[in-house]
């Protein structure tokens, strides 16, 4: 699947709670490997894409904090949504 297909989707829990939009993917970079570790979710939209979620985000290549749903909480990416488990520790 392409990154551009996955992004911008609504993220909802199994019980139907809307968490917001997926506007980026958090990943772990190691030699030869780039592994997706989470979905960066927010309700607000455009400003997030610019990286202005929090002032701290301005100082880093990754958004420090922000709402990140761990990738292993994802249940399915079928259709136009990303469904995650209700418990997302």
């Amino acid at each position: 699947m392409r990154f551009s297909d996955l992004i911008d989707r609504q993220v909802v829990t199994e019980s139907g709670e809307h968490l917001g939009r997926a506007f980026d993917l958090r990943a772990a970079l190691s030699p030869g490997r780039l592994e997706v570790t989470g979905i960066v979710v927010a309700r607000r939209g455009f400003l997030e894409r610019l990286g202005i979620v929090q002032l701290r985000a301005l100082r880093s290549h990754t958004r420090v904090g922000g709402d990140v749903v761990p990738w292993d909480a994802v249940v399915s990416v079928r259709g136009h949504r990303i469904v995650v488990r209700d418990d997302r520790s």
Partner: protein
Amino acid sequence: MSRPRAVDLALGVLDHQLVDPDGRRCGKVDDLDLELEVEIGEPARVTAVLVGPRYWPGRVRGPIGRLLARLGGGDGVKVSWDDVERVTSAVELARPASELGLGRGDDRFRPLIERLPWA
């Protein structure tokens, strides 16, 4: 660098410059291929960097995206993530652009420039 570094894909990889080992600029990261395997519970990985006008409709939806792709020539190259050496402010490749099929746009126009006087 044994511990993995956190990076956000749209912020830190997508739309960044591709540079080959000779320092040659050879395109931008237009999109990424992901291997998801969500059902099996396997971790999701980035498997390839997608470069070229062929992948623009994925970024700009609708007729505008398709028009742009056609204006750009419609080419596209899939670069395996194995061929990525390192990610800094650019995405640095492990092999020369010509081996990966990148930089063809410049290759196509080079003969025209070389034909100009005093070039």
